[in-house]
């Protein structure tokens, strides 16, 4: 396979390891060590994408993460990633990439007609044009615009890759491993302490990989290899392919390590890893990003940043063209010319817009036979889908030069992004003609090009200082000129001159914004979209700001500054989620008898943090048949249900009773030892919070239960009450949910089942263990608590044993003749008795709404008392709990709204809603609970339960909420 633009020797690629890849289905070859961008250039592929609005042909501008143009869809199928920068995507065997934003093909994009329609795509166009009629926005304008202007396509499939997270602690975090970062890390390592060095590239070195420099009289690459060896020997943690993306509180830094993005498939590795690095100090050695120059056609493939050209020539041994010109406002031009010539390319011009081209630079150009056009500019780049010639302006106005590569440089913008993540704004530095970090995050220092010191010598020196080293230890470098004269744009360019390549923002758009008064930097951004999208203006923000300064007659410092927020580069949502997705989104809690229930064939459902068995199907049963059988078993014989998920809180101490009186609305302290009581807790705002039972085991020992879903909230609330509101009470609160397995045993035969388990020594008869009594006894030979409480309305017990005995107790209950029932039957049983659960205790109901108003003690202060007494909560028309019974055998759905019979189903007739509904096997019909305005005053009325979403409705009678055994006779059996 031809790589026609590859140099025969040199570079940091491995010619012994060819790599096959494809671009838009075309099979190509590169080498190990290539990026997708360098491999495309080696194959002479210059057109790689179409622009956002105008669908103009675009090529490769840069050689780094700042790339605005060369965005591709990488990989296939579910692994497809849109908007991947070809300049940082490492080549791997079998890599497949597609160009974006073109139709039907990259070369023939019919939407490039948008270029001719440019006037309507100018800044502010959406705001002005698509105002009317409003209804057209969603249906017509937006879909049209989205089809015409866009970036890559998401796969639409679940992400197939795994992601990891890791935390590191450091005394010094060095961000960037160019000469400044290496120097800083060496110095910091010399002080002892933990040093982490993070580098976004696959190799250390920064510009040393791309520029031919010498350090200590040797090629810089030799110094680099030695520096890396010294860092490794010193135990520095080196993270390559790791971009620090954000700076957070307390010296916390976020980083994304691309662990396996350079491999065909991750195998056992995570694709990416999100790092949290906590560091006392940090050295910002992120280097600088080169500025493009604004001139006509500056977006044509073949117009590249000069530093990127040197990267492709030196590091990747690519010739990005055959005939090159250089357009630069700084002395880097000398290096660019030398590198191009060395690579065997013809250099037709050095175009220098400055008033004076330094003699040294002229001499370099002359030595290579390159004509210098002083005080001149490139007015226009000319070509179809790639550069073919340039037209000069300024002193050499009108000169036309044939070339297929233009290396441009408008100087360097320090990569100050991370320095402003705490809100500090970069400040303009006139002598450096650049924004440098202003107020830094605590503990951070900038070094090297990030601080405006763009020469290798300056980088080594400031890096060492920032790392805590001595100046004497800094290696020497050759002479380098970092002279720069600000030059942003060519006046009166021919054709569109782009400021922001990714968003297709031109110099005319910036001028329009200025004319229309959007002169504030933030307004400029919103009005023109300059600086938005995936590159966040890395190559455009500062230029746009400088142009606005010129347009409004202000200095750059007066015009403002731009701020940056995390992340520095795009971060996959998957990396932020890490392993916390799907079933691992949060921990799953299983009860001690979970495996036993599974062995009985029970399906499970999520209930709060827990998995609970829904029902226990027998062969041939439908789910409804199982539930009905389980309900009948409890009403007619004996069933048992795992209720270990209820929160259990131990409250002990001399003041335990007083404490519970304060946190519950009803009085607890009057409870005798050996007795239990239903208890209701309010929030301080007067609404119901949670309910459960409180049992008194001794004078100073209570155990309280909470609902499954509220267990952790109630615990925090009790901790708050104890520590913050009642610190003087001598009481301890401890969660014991995990320590106890607990089963409800319910039904007319419950006692005979229990008697088999407790043995002859214990009396669980009605006289010694009456309703709401508590006993501590041995069950199956292990210590247990037996609570005579009932949620089902039957003769019932809750039996608690140590968690490790949970499964054994389930087996024993089954052997003794009780049948297991699940969450569904539990729900039907409680519904038949009108007991509220989370659907009714929903945070918007008061005790009175739930028919529990009389529980509120008038004799004591308790949480929520004061505000429960306010007038609004006493309103007799508040929605309150009622029973619902469909007429004529209808079904009922939770969520349906209640409208009076005969009234249309409109919001003004909405009187409430159905909170719970189920088929009652006991009653042989559907039943429900609802919250209805006026509550039990409406008993006897007829409503319609309307579900407009599913077009269902049922006529219901409003009835008392207790459907079964309202007198409670079964409880006391």
């Amino acid at each position, binding site marked *: 396979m031809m790589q026609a633009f590859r140099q025969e020797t040199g570079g940091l690629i491995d010619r012994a390891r060819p790599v096959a890849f494809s671009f838009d289905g075309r099979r190509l070859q590169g080498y190990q060590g290539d990026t997708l961008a360098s491999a495309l250039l080696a194959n002479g592929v210059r057109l790689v994408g179409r622009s956002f609005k105008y669908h103009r042909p675009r090529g490769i501008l840069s050689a780094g993460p700042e790339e605005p143009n060369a965005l591709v869809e990488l990989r296939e199928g579910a692994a497809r990633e849109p908007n991947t920068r070809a300049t940082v995507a490492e080549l791997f065997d079998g890599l497949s990439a597609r160009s974006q934003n073109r139709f039907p093909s990259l070369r023939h994009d019919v939407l490039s007609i948008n270029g001719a329609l440019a006037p309507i795509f100018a800044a502010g166009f959406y705001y002005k044009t698509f105002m009317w009629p409003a209804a057209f926005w969603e249906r017509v304008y937006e879909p049209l615009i989205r089809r015409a202007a866009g970036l890559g396509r998401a796969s639409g499939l679940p992400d197939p890759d795994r992601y990891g997270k890791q935390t590191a602690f450091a005394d010094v975090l060095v961000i960037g491993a160019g000469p400044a970062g290496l120097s800083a890390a060496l110095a910091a390592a010399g002080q002892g302490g933990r040093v982490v060095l993070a580098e976004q590239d696959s190799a250390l070195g920064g510009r040393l990989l791309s520029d031919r420099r010498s350090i200590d009289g040797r090629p810089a690459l030799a110094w680099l290899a030695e520096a890396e060896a010294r860092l490794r020997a010193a135990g520095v943690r080196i993270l390559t392919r790791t971009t620090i993306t954000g700076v957070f*509180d*307390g010296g916390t830094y976020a980083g994304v390590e691309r662990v396996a993005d350079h491999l065909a498939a991750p195998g056992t590795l995570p694709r990416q890893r999100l790092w949290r690095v906590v560091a006392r100090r940090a050295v910002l050695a992120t280097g600088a990003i080169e500025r493009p120059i604004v001139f006509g056609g500056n977006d044509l493939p073949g117009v590249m940043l000069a530093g990127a050209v040197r990267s492709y020539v030196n590091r990747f041994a690519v010739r990005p063209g055959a005939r090159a010109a250089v357009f630069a406002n700084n002395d880097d031009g000398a290096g660019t010319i030398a590198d191009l010539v060395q690579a065997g390319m013809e250099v037709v011009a050095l175009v220098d817009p400055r008033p004076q081209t330094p003699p040294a630079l002229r001499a370099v150009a002359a030595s290579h036979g390159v004509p210098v056009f002083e005080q001149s500019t490139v007015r226009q780049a000319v070509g179809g889908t790639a550069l073919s010639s340039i037209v000069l302006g300024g002193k050499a106005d009108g000169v036309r030069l044939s070339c297929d590569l233009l290396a441009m440089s408008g100087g360097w913008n320090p990569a100050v992004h991370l320095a402003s993540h*705490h809100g500090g704004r970069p400040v303009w530095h006139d002598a450096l003609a650049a924004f440098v970090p202003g107020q830094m995050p*605590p503990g951070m220092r900038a070094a090297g090009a990030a601080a405006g010191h763009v020469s290798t010598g300056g980088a080594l020196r400031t890096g060492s200082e920032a790392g805590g080293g001595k100046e004497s230890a800094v290696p020497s470098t050759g002479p380098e000129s970092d002279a720069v004269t600000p030059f942003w744009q060519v006046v009166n360019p021919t054709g569109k001159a782009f400021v922001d390549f990714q968003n297709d923002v031109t110099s005319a758009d910036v001028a329009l914004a200025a004319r229309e008064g959007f002169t504030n930097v933030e307004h400029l951004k919103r009005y023109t979209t300059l600086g938005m999208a995936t590159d966040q203006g890395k190559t455009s923000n500062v230029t746009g700001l400088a142009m606005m300064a010129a347009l409004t007659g202000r200095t750059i410092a007066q015009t403002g500054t731009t701020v940056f927020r995390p992340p520095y580069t795009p971060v996959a949502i998957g990396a932020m989620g890490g392993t916390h997705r799907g079933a691992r989104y*949060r921990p799953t809690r299983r009860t001690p008898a979970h495996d036993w229930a599974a062995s009985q064939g029970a399906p499970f459902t999520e209930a709060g943090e827990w998995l609970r068995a829904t029902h226990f199907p027998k062969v041939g049963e439908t789910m409804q048949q199982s539930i009905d059988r389980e309900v009948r078993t409890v009403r007619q014989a004996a069933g048992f249900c795992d209720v270990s998920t209820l929160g259990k809180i131990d409250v002990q101490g001399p003041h335990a009773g007083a404490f519970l009186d304060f946190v519950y609305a009803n009085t607890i302290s009057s409870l005798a030892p050996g007795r239990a009581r239903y208890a209701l807790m309010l929030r*301080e*705002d007067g609404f119901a919070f949670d309910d459960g039972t409180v049992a008194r085991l001794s004078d100073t020992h209570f155990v309280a239960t909470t609902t499954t879903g509220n267990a*952790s909230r109630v*615990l*925090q609330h009790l*901790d*708050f009450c104890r*520590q*913050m*509101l009642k610190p003087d009470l001598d009481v301890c609160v401890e969660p014991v949910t995990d320590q106890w397995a607990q089963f409800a045993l319910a039904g007319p035969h419950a006692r005979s089942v229990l008697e088999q388990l407790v043995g002859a020594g214990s009396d669980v008869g009605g006289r010694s263990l009456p309703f709401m009594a508590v006993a501590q006894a041995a069950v199956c030979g292990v210590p247990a608590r037996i609570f005579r409480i009932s949620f089902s309305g039957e003769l019932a017990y809750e039996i608690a044993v140590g968690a490790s005995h949970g499964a054994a107790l389930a087996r024993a209950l089954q052997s003794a003749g009780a049948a297991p029932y699940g969450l569904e039957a539990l729900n039907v049983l409680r519904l038949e008795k009108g007991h509220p659960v989370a659907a009714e205790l929903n945070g918007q109901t008061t005790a009175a709404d739930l028919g529990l108003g009389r529980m509120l003690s008038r004799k004591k*202060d308790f949480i929520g*008392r*004061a*505000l429960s007494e*306010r007038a609004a909560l006493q309103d007799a028309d508040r929605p309150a709990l009622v029973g619902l019974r469909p007429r004529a055998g209808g079904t009922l759905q939770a969520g349906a709204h209640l409208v009076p019979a005969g009234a249309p189903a409109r919001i003004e007739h909405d009187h409430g809603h159905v909170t719970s509904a189920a088929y009652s096997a006991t009653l042989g019909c559907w039943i429900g609970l609802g919250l209805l305005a006026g509550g039990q005053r409406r008993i006897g009325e007829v409503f319609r339960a309307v579900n407009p979403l599913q077009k269902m409705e049922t006529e219901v009678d409003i009835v008392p909420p207790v459907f079964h055994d309202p007198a409670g006779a079964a409880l006391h059996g």
Partner: protein
Amino acid sequence: MEEFVYAGDATLSRPGSNAELSAWVDYVYFRDNPAGPHSELWYHAAACRQFLKVERDTRTHVISSAELA
């Protein structure tokens, strides 16, 4: 789940049981939203369950002190 959970303004004090309704409404609903030093409670949810009183600057998130509440 995070190890520490924000638990509100530390300067509030619960009104006495005979307090006016307005005092309760202030206590339950109204909060200052200072730009600057703020005294707040944090709950060590994932470990000792102790409430901490933390002095934090809401502009910089710098925590100047933390003590057992």
